[in-house]
């Protein structure tokens, strides 16, 4: 925003303020449309973010590939040292 000093010497800025004060408001319908677009796009973005990776994994599995999310979960388990799904090792690590 321009300072008061620069406004005093600048008729363009004074005109801008005058026109802004005299101009009617954009209609409530315009506001509703803009905010409606914002909400809808936000919602679609969230849906895509949540489900798109799952859907990709399912499609990949459907066509014979490996589910990426499943793979990455396994890799994460390995990094974390969690072997919950591994039934070849006895609880407590004792060998038979």
């Amino acid at each position, binding site marked *: 925003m321009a300072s008061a000093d620069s406004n005093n010497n600048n008729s363009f800025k004074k005109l*801008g303020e*005058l*026109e802004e004060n005299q*101009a009617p*408001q954009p209609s409530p319908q315009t*506001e509703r449309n*803009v*905010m409606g677009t914002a909400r809808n796009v*936000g919602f679609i973005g969230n849906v895509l973010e949540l489900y798109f990776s799952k859907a990709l994994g399912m499609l990949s599995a459907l066509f014979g590939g490996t589910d990426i999310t499943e793979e990455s979960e396994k890799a994460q388990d390995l990094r974390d040292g969690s072997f919950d799904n591994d039934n070849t090792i006895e609880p407590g690590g004792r060998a038979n």
Partner: protein
Amino acid sequence: MKTPSSFRGKSAKSPLSKKTDSEVIKLYLKTQRSDYFGLLYQRYSTKVFSKCISLLKDEALAQDATQEIFTKIFLNLAKFSERSKFSTWVYSITYNYCIDFLRKRKKSKALFSDEMENPPDIVDDVPDSALLEMEVIKLKKVLELIPTGDKAILLMKYQDDMSIKEIATILDKSESAIKMKIKRAKHKAQNVYRDIFPNNLN
């Protein structure tokens, strides 16, 4: 500043209203909550609408333009790089939209003085003070009578303090072409002023 209907009354007391544009944008991008975008709409919609009326000279067209401009702002918010002020970015989208719209509508008519078939030769440079110190009502009249492109370029430079480089980007022209357009627009404005206010020395 006037505020749009759904925000009237509550936003002035909200701690959100104290946040800078940059902080609000970061919050919006982080949370995707539409009320943050609503706050940006509240801050700029009247200015954008007023500029659209001034350039398009039609309130209904200005309503549609304001909606399109804010949709563009919303869809490109993540690309806003903070190299310029947010207000400059918003106004650049506004000018861009309006000039594009007028170009499409007035295919045969020149939007800028230097696009006319025989642009007049410019001998002397018009000093900035000749325009900046003009009486506001007279300046308004002069701006109404010069080509809309000339008006837009003068508003970008003297009302919104845009740099030559920023104007060149908006109009997709070289910086030297913009300097020439500004020179011609000032010249045109001064000539119109002399025509309609012949008894004035200003």
